[in-house]
Structure formats: structure tokens, C-alpha cells
């Protein structure tokens, strides 16, 4: 088990290193940022000075190495736009994103578990059909459109909830549900098919024959094994969650990492783009690593297969 964790850890680090190179190269390829931060009237000399001041005149390899060295200590340089340390921006935005994600995940899990399990247990009934509709809709509705429609109906016409920005619990409801919707759909689908398979297996029948209470058979014996596919896909769902968050945060004016990424990319703010992408990738890597470990822990067969 220790060896498995160690190999996966090294692999994640290698992937992050490669990604940091890619991000660095891509950020440099997006065009000269000086055109955006200097006024139209700036002279050649101004350009040269600014380039030197921001360290953009040094060789790329040197720029990259110093970037990585400082990034490891949490120093991502200064934002070209905001003229503030990037680390500060990230530290300010990240908690907001995490809070929103946590809210969305909690709501999704609370909905997905009962729905997925009941849909399998009462296969073919109204609940099952409703669950299927939610599942298909969750994969087919464009998030940003749902967001706009919700803002117009719930926040605009009905005036029930705030339309955007971060505030009390009420401000979490709309972005949280928009973000959590597709997670509910995907997770419920996996749970339902997992449960259907498991409920049909010998050990569940045995448990029933032995006289275990039906509720216990379903929620303890069967659910345990039906969870395996859900755990396998948890990593992928998390990265989709991050993706969706960019759109949701942009539409709801949520001051999180996703919106920061959008703003940074549209203003070609190199240091911020690098920092956001690497932070996100690191979070995704940590989540994937933990998912793998949890997976190997519940399903020992995995440890021996590479």
C-alpha cells in the first residue's frame, strides 16, 4: 500500500512539472502583455524599461526556473494588471471558490444518494423515471444558460434570492444549485446502475435469506459495493466541477478562482494565469491522488494492477 501511494505521488508530481512547463510556454505565447498595460503613446524606451522591470527580457529558461523556484514558496510574482502580489489574489479568491464548491457538493450528495439508491430499489416506478429525467437533463443543460434563466426567474421576476455576488447563505443557493446540478445527475446515474448490479448479486440474496432487514440490505450491504464506481469517477467529476465553476462564477459575479482565471485570461495577465492554472491543477492532482488511495483502500485488487 505504501509503495502504491508513493508511486502515485511521484507520478502526480511529474505531471505537475510537465504542466508547469506547458503553462509557462503557453502564457508566453499569448502575445506581448506590455501592449495591454502600457498606454498607446508609450515609446520604444518605455517598452524596454517595462520589460526589464518585469524581468521579461531575460532568457526563457531563466524566467521559467526563477518562476518555479518562487512558485514553490507560494510567490507567484506580481499581477501585471492589479499590481498586487498574485499569491495575495489567490489567497483572497480561493476560499470563496472552495466555499461554493463545498456547498454545491453537499447539496448534490444529499440529493444524489437517496435518488440514486431509491431509483434502483424501486426500478421502473415514478421515482426511477424522475431520476432518469434528472440524469439526462443534467448532462444536456448548458450551465451558463441555466444560470441566466435562474437569475431572471428567481432573482429577477420573483425577487427571492440575490442575483450575484457573495453574501449570506442566500447568495450561495443559485450558484450552488447551478454548479451542483450536473454532479447530481452523473453521480445518481452511477449509483443507480451500481445498485442495480449489486442488488442482483449472490451475497445480497444471501443477506436477505439470512433475514437481514431490507433497509439494512440496501443501505449497508449493497450500497458499500455500489459506491466503488462512484469513487472511481470522483476524480473526473471534480475536474468537471472546476471547469463548470469558471462559467458559474463568471455569470454569478462570484469572486472566486474561476472568475479570476477568466479575468486574467482576457487581460493576458501572465503571472495570474500561471498561478491559477497551477493552483487548480495542484488541487485536482491532490484530489485524484486521494481518490486513488481511497479506491485502493476499499478495493485491494487495484493495488496490484498498474
Amino acid at each position, binding site marked *: 500500500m505504501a509503495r502504491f501511494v508513493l508511486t502515485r505521488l511521484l507520478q502526480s508530481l511529474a505531471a505537475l512539472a510537465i504542466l508547469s512547463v506547458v*503553462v509557462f510556454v503557453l502564457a508566453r505565447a499569448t502575445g506581448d502583455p506590455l501592449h495591454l498595460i502600457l498606454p498607446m503613446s508609450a515609446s520604444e524606451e518605455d517598452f524596454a524599461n517595462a520589460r526589464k522591470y518585469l524581468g521579461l527580457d531575460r532568457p526563457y529558461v531563466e524566467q521559467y526556473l526563477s518562476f518555479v523556484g518562487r512558485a514553490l514558496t507560494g510567490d507567484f510574482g506580481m499581477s501585471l494588471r492589479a499590481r498586487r502580489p498574485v499569491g495575495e489574489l489567490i489567497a483572497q479568491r480561493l476560499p470563496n471558490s472552495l466555499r461554493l464548491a463545498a456547498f454545491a457538493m453537499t447539496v448534490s450528495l444529499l440529493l444524489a444518494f437517496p435518488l440514486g439508491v431509491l431509483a434502483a430499489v424501486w426500478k421502473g416506478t415514478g421515482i426511477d423515471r424522475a431520476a432518469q429525467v434528472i440524469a439526462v437533463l443534467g448532462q*444536456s443543460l*448548458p*450551465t451558463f*444558460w441555466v444560470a*441566466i434563466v435562474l437569475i431572471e426567474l428567481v432573482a429577477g421576476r420573483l425577487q427571492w434570492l440575490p442575483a450575484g455576488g457573495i453574501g449570506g447563505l442566500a447568495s450561495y443557493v443559485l450558484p450552488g444549485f447551478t454548479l451542483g446540478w450536473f454532479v447530481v445527475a452523473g453521480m445518481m446515474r452511477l449509483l443507480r446502475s451500481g445498485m442495480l448490479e449489486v442488488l442482483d448479486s449472490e451475497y445480497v440474496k444471501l443477506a436477505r435469506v439470512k433475514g437481514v432487514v431490507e433497509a439494512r440490505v440496501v443501505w449497508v450491504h449493497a450500497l458499500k459495493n455500489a459506491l466503488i464506481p462512484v469513487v472511481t469517477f470522483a476524480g473526473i467529476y471534480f475536474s468537471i466541477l472546476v*471547469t463548470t465553476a469558471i462559467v458559474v462564477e463568471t455569470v454569478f459575479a462570484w469572486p472566486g478562482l474561476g472568475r479570476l482565471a477568466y479575468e486574467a485570461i*482576457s487581460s493576458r495577465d501572465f503571472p495570474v494565469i500561471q498561478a491559477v*492554472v497551477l493552483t487548480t491543477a495542484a488541487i*485536482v492532482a491532490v484530489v485524484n491522488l486521494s481518490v486513488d488511495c481511497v479506491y485502493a483502500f476499499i478495493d485491494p485488487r487495484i493495488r496490484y494492477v498498474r
Partner: protein
Amino acid sequence: MPLAIIGVFVFAALFANFLSPADPEEQTLRQRFTPPVWDERGSWKHVLGTDRLGRDLLSRIIWGSRVSLTAGVLTVLLASAVGAGVGLVAGYYGGRVDTVLMRVTDATMSFPVILLALILAVTVGPSFVNVVIAIAVILWARYARVIRGQVLTLMGLDFITQARIAGASAARIILRHLLPNTLNTLVVLTTLQVGYVIIVEASLSFLGAGIPPPTPAWGSMISEGRDFVTSAWWVSFFPGLAILLVVLAFNLLGDWLRDTLDPKLRQL
């Protein structure tokens, strides 16, 4: 039913120039924000109403289907070709080749699609081709994973061993024996992914990093109508409805194909 919906949109995309009642890029400022026909201020001239610049929404949606469907299909074809190639090679050779390829696949798969697509789109400027490439660069990984898994199972079967003993080359085994046996999976996965790609493309266009204006793309149409939702809801609503219908149809078709062709693929 899903086939009928897809059929309608494919037809619209193919014959957009005959079907659309007006020029999708023609602006008539005097008729801006005309509501749909059932509203008392609406007219049959603009069945679904007009947008901020007085452009006919129905025509723009019809032309938009061309953009969305081409983007969806092209991206998926590109991604499936690369992904299937990687999956076949990794599964066939195994060992170190497999380890390296699968590491790359995992790293790609866990990377948020939109983040990379945004960076790429900004790097080389937003354009149709760039959107297709940006999405395909991430999307191939899923094919690689699934196909490799199937190839691993196939490799243990007798007919592959026999082909080897008979002296078939690696290329021949991969193309003639392994590929045909993974076709069902490829078809199912591809159908399910078209819808996903259409949504990602629309999200990118919505964020301003996709298909650049004035080309009518559903995502950018929704974005254009966003500031006027309260006064002119139809501008954002109808393109979104179009996306929903097409993606829904592809997902239902994919589900049906999966259940028919290979029920074991439930996790795709």
C-alpha cells in the same frame, strides 16, 4: 425521437442558406428586440423575434446549428482517432509503453477542459479551428482509457494469440483484429461525446473565447442576450433551448446505442 431531433438540426445545418427566412448577419436597428410572433408586438416576419441589432433570431439559430454540429462532430472525430490510436497501442504493447501513455492520459483527463481551451483560444486567438483543437487536445484521453481497457481484455483471448502464432504483424493485429472489436464502444462513446463537445464549445463562445462574432454561434448568442434578459428574454432563451434539444438528443441516442450494442458499458 432523438434521431428525429438530430435529423431536423442536421437538415437545418445542411440547408441553412435555403431554410433561414432572413440573412443571419443583417442588422435592422429599427426592429431591434422584436418579440416572438405570439407576443402582440411580434410579427411573422421574425418568428422568434430579433436581437440587440435587429437580426432575425430564427435565422441565426439555423445558421448556428451549422457551427455547433460541425464543431461537435469534427472535434469528436479528431479526439476519437487520436484516443483510439493511443489506447490500441498502449493496450497492445503493454509494459513501459503502456505506463507512459496512461500517465499522459491520466494527466490530460484530470485537467479542466475549459481552462486549457481558454488558454489555447487566447493564445492563438479565438477561431473555429482553435476551438476544435483545444477541446480535442483534452477529449482524446477518455477514448484512450476506455479503448485500452477493452484491448487488455481482448489481448487475453485466443484469437489474438493465434493471429500472433500465424505471424501477423503488430499493425495487422491492431488494425484488423483489435480495432473492429472496439468499434461498438467507439460508436457509443462518440455519440455521447458530441453533446458534451457542443456544450463546451457553447461555453467557450459564451465566455468570448470560442467562435468570434459576427458568426452566429449559440453560445455567443446567449451571451449577447444576457444583459437584456429582463426586457427581451427571447434573445438568450431560444439559442439555449436549441443547445438543450440537440445535446439531449445526442445523449438519448448514445444511451440507446449503449443499451443495444453493449450493455456492459454502463459507466461511459
